[in-house]
C-alpha cells in the first residue's frame, strides 16, 4: 500500500492506494491530487524509502514508492 501525504492546514491529508483493482478509485484520486498539486507549484518527495536510500524529489506519479510527501508551493517571506 502506498501513501500520499499532502501537507495542509490540518497537518496533512493522506491518500492510500496501490496498483490493485480494489483501490483503483483511490489510485485515480491520488494521481489527480498529485498532478494538481505539482501543477500549482508544490513539490513531492519520496520518503522512508528503506534500505538506507535517501529521500528524493519526484515528479512522476508512476515513480512513487511507499510514502510520498507533497509540500506546498513556497514563497519568500
Amino acid at each position, binding site marked *: 500500500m502506498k501513501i500520499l*501525504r499532502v*501537507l*495542509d*492546514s*490540518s*497537518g*496533512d491529508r493522506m491518500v492510500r492506494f496501490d496498483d490493485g483493482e480494489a483501490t483503483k478509485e483511490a489510485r485515480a484520486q491520488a494521481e489527480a491530487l498529485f498532478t494538481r498539486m505539482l501543477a500549482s*507549484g508544490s*513539490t513531492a*518527495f519520496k*520518503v*522512508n524509502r528503506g534500505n538506507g536510500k*535517501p*529521500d*528524493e*524529489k519526484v515528479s512522476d506519479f508512476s515513480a512513487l514508492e511507499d510514502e510520498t*510527501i507533497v*509540500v*506546498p*508551493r*513556497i*514563497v*519568500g*517571506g
Partner: protein
Amino acid sequence: MRISWLVRIRRALQKLAGRQDAAGGQAQQRGDTPAFAWDGLSREPLSGPLDVIDVSGADLRARNLLLRMLTPTQRAEFERRDAFTVEVAGRGRFAILPRRTLNVLDMESGECYCCVTATDVPLFDLMLTQKLLLEHDPDKFFAAANCPSEFLFGPSPRSVRRQRGGVPTRVRASSLSALPYADRTL
C-alpha cells in the same frame, strides 16, 4: 569568532526571557547534559522563547510527522532545542528554527532566510517543507527565499566587514524586534 556571536545570541535570548538564573538552576537540578555537539552553539540547553510552543491538533500531527522524517541526529537536536540543522549540498549547514519568519539560518555566514508556504500549514509542516527542500531541492528554496541584509546573525558577511570594519554598529528601527540584535537593543 563564530562561537562568540552565537553565545551572545543565546545570552540575549535568556535575558529576554528573564530566566537566566532560573533556567541554569533547573538544568543543573535535572543534570541535563546535551547528547550532541551542535557546531558553534553552546552545549547548554536553550531556554526562553524557543521552547514555548503550543502543540495541539494539527500541530501535533505535524510534529509527529516531522519527528518521523528527521534523521536520528536531527531528532536529537529537535528534542533538545525545537530546532535542527540540515546539510545543504555545496552550501554548508543551515539551522531551521521554530518560527515562521527568518527561521533558516546559514551557520557559516549568519545570514537568515525567510521562506514560507503559500498555503497555511502548521509550524512543524513549514519546518518539514524547508528541510525537504534544502536537502533535496535547494535551488527551489533559494530561488524563492528572501535574505534581508539587515537580519544578519553575526559579523562574518564580507560586506559588513568591509563597510564597518567588523561588527555592525547601526541598528535599523525595523530590526528592533529581531532576535539577532536583541543584545544590542537592551
